[in-house]
């Protein structure tokens, strides 16, 4: 084949043939490495499907608790419209402030819509009554979206009622006032949300990555054969290989705590015991996840790629970057299976929402379960022979 002078590699002492040789060799190697190839193909497909549908910056289906102090035709119409709206999911209708507060604290609801006594009477009289909206601002992005949405919903909700004799109320500004309370993070500072959450991201990244190469490195260097020739048991290898990293995790936690306190001035409001327990369990879960990867991957390179494959959903589907409750249900289920999702809830509740041990059992339980399942799979996957 004759190539234009520009491509005349012989002048540079290069050869198309050698380049082709290398290129083809790489192609062959790539095809042989089924896992890497699979991940490279699956990555864009899976990630696009997951994140393209799961992530929604226009949050919908935010769980709300309604605190009803009044029961009349207007409030009932308002409630019906809320029900019909895709922005909010009414998870409960309660009559006391305590109950609503508890649900907000536990994360069952992301905000409280509170309709005070005498609302209708004052509305009809044109006294501009208040609707109280208390939003959980420990995640400011989710809270901001919810607040904007609720104002739209209220407008739509009352519109059908403001007809006939009440048509005078169909005006702007509306004949009521929405008073917003940002709870747990009054200034709506995103650092309050991001910094504790970053602890989760950092721990996921490092713990999973370090342990994911623990077995593949042995196989690659040939030391696995010697290890397997000794009477060491799979669970001993697992424990022995992962525990050293608990110390590294503890150091990272310490660094983040110090920076959060002195640099970002984040108040630590909850129980230190709950925090320690939640963090320790989260570190275990990540170590087991990494170890499981190392029983599946055959090379360190594959282990790294698989780690990354887990890492992206941990960022995008855990409630770290986008409101968890705004994702579709199937995406929430995937999120529930990720250790970091539970850890994020635990740190937000403990650091910003004054939570104690009792408040986080809802997330400690799943975290413990995930850890056990991962450890079980890793032990099943461990190859005690070189087959």
């Amino acid at each position: 084949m004759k190539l234009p002078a520009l491509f005349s590699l012989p002048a540079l002492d290069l050869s198309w043939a050698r380049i082709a040789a290398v290129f083809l060799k790489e192609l062959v190697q790539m095809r042989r490495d089924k896992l890497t190839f699979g991940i490279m193909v699956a990555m864009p497909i899976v990630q696009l499907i997951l994140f393209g549908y799961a992530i929604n910056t226009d949050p919908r289906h935010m769980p709300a608790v309604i605190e009803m102090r009044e029961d009349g035709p207007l409030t009932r119409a308002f409630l019906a419209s809320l029900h019909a709206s895709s922005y909010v999911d009414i998870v409960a209708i309660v009559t006391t402030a305590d109950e609503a507060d508890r649900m907000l604290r536990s994360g069952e609801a992301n905000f409280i819509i509170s309709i005070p006594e005498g609302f209708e009477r004052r509305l009809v009289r044109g006294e501009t009554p208040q609707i109280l909206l208390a939003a959980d601002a420990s995640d400011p992005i989710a809270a901001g979206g919810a607040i904007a949405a609720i104002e739209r919903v209220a407008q739509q909700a009352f519109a059908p009622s403001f007809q006939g004799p009440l048509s005078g109320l169909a005006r702007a500004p509306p004949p009521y006032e929405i008073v917003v309370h940002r709870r747990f993070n009054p200034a709506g500072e995103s650092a309050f949300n991001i910094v504790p959450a970053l602890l989760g991201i950092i721990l996921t990244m490092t713990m999973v990555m370090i342990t994911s190469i623990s077995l593949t490195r042995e196989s690659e260097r040939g030391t696995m054969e010697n290890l397997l020739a000794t009477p060491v048991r799979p669970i001993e290898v697992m424990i022995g290989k992962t525990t050293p990293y608990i110390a590294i995790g503890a150091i990272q936690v310490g660094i983040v705590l110090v920076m959060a306190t002195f640099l970002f001035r984040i108040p630590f409001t909850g129980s230190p015991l709950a925090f320690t327990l939640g963090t320790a369990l989260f570190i275990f879960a990540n170590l087991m996840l990494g170890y499981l990867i190392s029983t599946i991957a055959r090379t360190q390179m594959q282990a790294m790629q698989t780690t990354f494959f887990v890492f992206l959903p941990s960022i995008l589907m855990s409630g770290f970057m986008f409101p968890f409750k705004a994702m579709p249900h199937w995406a929430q289920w995937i999120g529930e299976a990720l250790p970091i999702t539970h850890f994020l809830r635990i740190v937000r509740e403990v650091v910003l929402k004054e939570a104690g041990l009792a408040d986080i059992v809802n997330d400690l339980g799943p975290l413990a379960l995930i850890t056990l399942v991962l450890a079980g799979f890793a032990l099943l996957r461990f190859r005690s022979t070189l087959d």
Partner: protein
Amino acid sequence: MSDELVIDVTGLTKSFGARKVVDNFDLKVPRGAIYGFLGPNGSGKTTTIRMVCGLLKPEAGQGRVLGFDVLHESLRIKERVGYMTQKFSLYEDLSIRENLEFIARLYGLDRRKARVDHALEDLGLAERQTQLAGKLSGGWKQRLALAACMIHEPEVLLLDEPTAGVDPKARRDFWDAIRRYAAQGVTTLVSTHYMDEAVQCDSIAYIAYGKKLLDSHTADIPKQIGLSAWRIEGRPLIDVQHALEADPRVELVARFGAAIHACAREPVPLEAAVRSRASGASACGDQQNRGRLR
């Protein structure tokens, strides 16, 4: 040596993909024997040894090592067997001492420090104990690997080409060590492709393409094959070699260093051929055919 069989496996078979790498392999090694395992590269020696110590699952066959089932009791076997891998498989980023202590801990040994010290003395590694294993030369790595697989005082040693790529002095030292252990009652299965090492063994099993072709006491092998051999020395040998190769009475001519080996099944025509072709060189026959030619 006693009649008690330490390794007794039959019908071991292993395939990788569609290829049978070890085919219906039997081996019986009595206590205290040094058993040589001979065969060209890729013939299945490593695979067989791995099946014997439980590192690979045979797809057919069964057997016992020290009375324990190779299929179901490999942990019991691993506790009592020392396996030296063909490729150095200790940690290059640990020191000699750290490697030995690691192995000693894995076997749950008491008096760990004393044992490690003893192993270091025994193999002449005491002065180098803090050196990283990765920085050692081939001969020293091999000593370390032997020390590591002896540290738990195993009853059986499985050595996979332990002297490959090692200088002659280190090889001699290594074999001295093996004979010392054998004298203490340790049973050894050692694979090699050096003929001169194979003849130091009490028995030899020869494997090629996964099939065992030969298995007997070393001294009986020439008789068993029915091959006579003459060893021819002197200079210049190249003409003698060509002449012998051209002679139909000689079946095989091979060069061994400064000597030629001429082999054939029929001793009388072979002797005639050697006498006529190798005049001027010195030659001697094999055990059965001790005639000298001068």
